[in-house]
């Protein structure tokens, strides 16, 4: 299945893009996806511990099982105010 991934803040500079698409197995988790993305964008790997992850507009943990059509967002800690 195909998943769209959006990058925000300086993650756009780390990856060189605002979004990408990945074809993954149907039982894949966010952890699986992050591993795949770390291979594609090596600079992301170093940010793993501080990366925040959302599916749609909700935060999700690494064990979330992805579904067809999910839109995943990856971004650094937020800093509003």
């Amino acid at each position, binding site marked *: 299945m195909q998943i769209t991934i*959006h990058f*925000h*803040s*300086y993650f756009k500079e780390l990856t060189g893009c605002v979004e990408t698409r990945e074809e993954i197995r149907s039982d894949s988790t966010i952890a699986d996806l992050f591993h795949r993305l770390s291979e594609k964008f090596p600079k992301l790997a170093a940010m793993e511990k501080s990366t*925040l992850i*959302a599916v*749609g*507009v*909700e*935060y999700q943990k690494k064990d979330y099982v992805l579904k067809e059509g999910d839109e995943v*967002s990856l*971004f*650094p800690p*937020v*800093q*509003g*105010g």
Partner: protein
Amino acid sequence: MKRQLTIATEPIDEAALFAQREMSSGMGAAIYFLGVVRESEGAEKISAIDYETFHKMAEHQFSLLFDEMEKRWPIESVRLVHRIGVVKVSEPSLWVEIVAPHRGEAFAACQWLIDEMKRVVPIWKKPLSRV
């Protein structure tokens, strides 16, 4: 609880916000907080901060915070304005107003809301150096 959320690039118009304030006769406290861009970020002197947001998620996360705030305190209204885009030093980036029966809950709710905003609402800042 009445809610008003604005996330926009336009400068924050404090006078207009004050003019639009509504308080019922049972309310005894109206407090507001203004967050202003400082001239330094750590040791670096800056000219402005460029704020970025994931707008749809930011609106959703603010909505969840307002839901939680309503459970915790008897707030009559909350109004929050967060400016995005380039905000120059000494200009406001955040304006929050809470109307409640007493000052204690108004101050507590305002402090909590801003702390939680900084934890979960997807807004990021990029300091722009002086040239």
